[in-house]
């Protein structure tokens, strides 16, 4: 379903949705772009690059309580369920790379085993994408990993900026619901509008981006050069922080801890938090042995997970080319360069 929204009516549409759901949109605050909750009567405009934090937090928050527990001494522990009571949420301005990352996260959390915490949030969130008219960052490489600046994967609605108006395409049932709910604001798209959107998409594709070899070539190269000395060389400057993975829209590793709030009676929460393969404790064994003992091994894990292991398991690359790990790396470690140099492409 394709419609047209005049730019000046965007805020109106957001406000209308805000009456029924919590609305998030990119906002520039404290020096960074982030998804911020939109308060009533705030003017919403899209002129953002990519947000620093990806959209994954809406379905996979950094901290999730799995259950609460309480144990009186000598008695069996009581467990209390804490499934999230997720409120309907609509997220505006999601870039197509973050949308595609959602497809990858779905594969991890809902294929084979359905993670109820993830699913509860996923069911309630609507992602309204915004096609990129030009690459929001100089480190974008979505075209090289099978995506595009106007990919619809994982999004519920895709908006494309045209002259003075947005082409709004509903993709999923959830998306159609919010578009149909605003029939008074959105006009039906004419054939010319569809053509204009297609032209905007074609123009966006023409912008130069960082380039990576094909999925098959990179995967084969990484597999062949697993033991390459290049890994250590490229990771020699790595400082071992977790910025790359915490900011990645498709990194999904987590840790589970018990947070004790009282010892008598034993009370607390079992909590799931993001974890990070770049930290030494990620693979630390209780014996003290660490199989990924240095930054080279950890860099190899991160890059290979994105571009080799995920391909082997799901036949798609996990990386969606947003470029955040490159732009935010304190020492300029660049996944495109690393994958290219190691795989010998």
């Amino acid at each position, binding site marked *: 379903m394709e419609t047209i929204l005049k730019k000046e009516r965007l805020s109106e549409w957001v406000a209308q949705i805000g009456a029924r759901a919590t609305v998030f949109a990119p906002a520039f605050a404290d020096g960074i772009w982030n998804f911020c909750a939109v308060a009533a009567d705030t003017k919403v405009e899209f002129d953002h690059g990519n947000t620093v934090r990806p959209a994954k937090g809406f379905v996979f928050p950094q901290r999730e309580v799995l259950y609460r527990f309480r144990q009186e001494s000598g008695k069996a522990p009581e467990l209390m369920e804490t499934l999230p009571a997720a409120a309907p949420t609509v997220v505006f301005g999601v870039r197509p790379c973050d949308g595609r990352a959602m497809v990858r996260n779905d594969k991890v959390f809902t294929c084979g085993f359905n993670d109820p915490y993830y699913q509860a949030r996923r069911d309630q969130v609507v992602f309204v994408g915004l096609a990129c008219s030009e690459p929001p960052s100089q480190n974008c490489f979505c075209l090289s990993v099978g995506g595009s600046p106007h990919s619809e994967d994982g999004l519920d609605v895709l908006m494309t900026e045209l002259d003075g108006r947005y082409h709004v395409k509903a993709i999923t049932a959830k998306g159609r619901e919010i578009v149909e709910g605003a029939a008074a604001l959105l006009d039906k798209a004419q054939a010319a509008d569809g053509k204009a959107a297609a032209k905007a998409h074609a123009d966006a594709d023409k912008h130069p981006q960082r380039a990576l070899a094909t999925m098959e070539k990179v995967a084969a190269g990484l597999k062949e050069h697993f033991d390459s000395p290049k890994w250590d060389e490229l990771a020699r400057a790595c400082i071992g922080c977790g910025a790359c993975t915490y900011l990645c829209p498709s990194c999904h590793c987590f840790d589970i801890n018990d947070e*004790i*709030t009282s010892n008598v009676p034993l009370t607390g929460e079992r909590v799931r938090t993001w974890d990070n393969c770049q930290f030494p404790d990620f693979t630390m064994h209780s014996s003290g042995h660490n199989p990924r003992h240095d930054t080279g091994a950890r860099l190899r894990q991160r890059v290979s997970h994105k571009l080799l292991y995920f391909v082997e398991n799901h036949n798609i690359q996990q990386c969606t080319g947003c470029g955040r790990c490159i732009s935010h790396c304190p020492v300029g470690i660049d996944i495109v360069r690393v994958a290219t140099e190691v795989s010998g492409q």
Partner: protein
Amino acid sequence: MSEVLETPVQAKKEAQEFEPKIVAFLCKWCSSAGSDLAGVSRLQYPPNAVPIQVMCSGSVSPLYILSAFNKGADGVLVSGCHPGDCHYLKGNFFARRRIYLVQKLLKFIGLEPDRFRMSWVSAAEGTKYAQVVADFVKDIKALGPQRKLKARN
């Protein structure tokens, strides 16, 4: 530590008036003996301070202080021997410098300065210890509960 904090004032939690929880790190040789003296002298002073005996005020890590706030303390007191009286000769001098910096840092992030205090209390100063605690409780009552560094749950 949460366990220690809960017990003595837990019963009063229900009471209408806010009863602050105070963690008091007392050096074994002076201040702890001073608090004992206050006790055996039957001095009346508020029961809000939970004493934790340490070997020297110089052994109190800033982490203990922050952790006490994190675990729900409304105020933290560090007390040691008067300058020159340290059992280990200079432990309290190290403490003085370090505590000064902790206090400035807490102030810088916007924690009320009255929530963190240092005192010199000798083994003979039972009355002073009672007074220090009474003053502290009074000041913290005026501020209300500490939430800034307290863990959510």
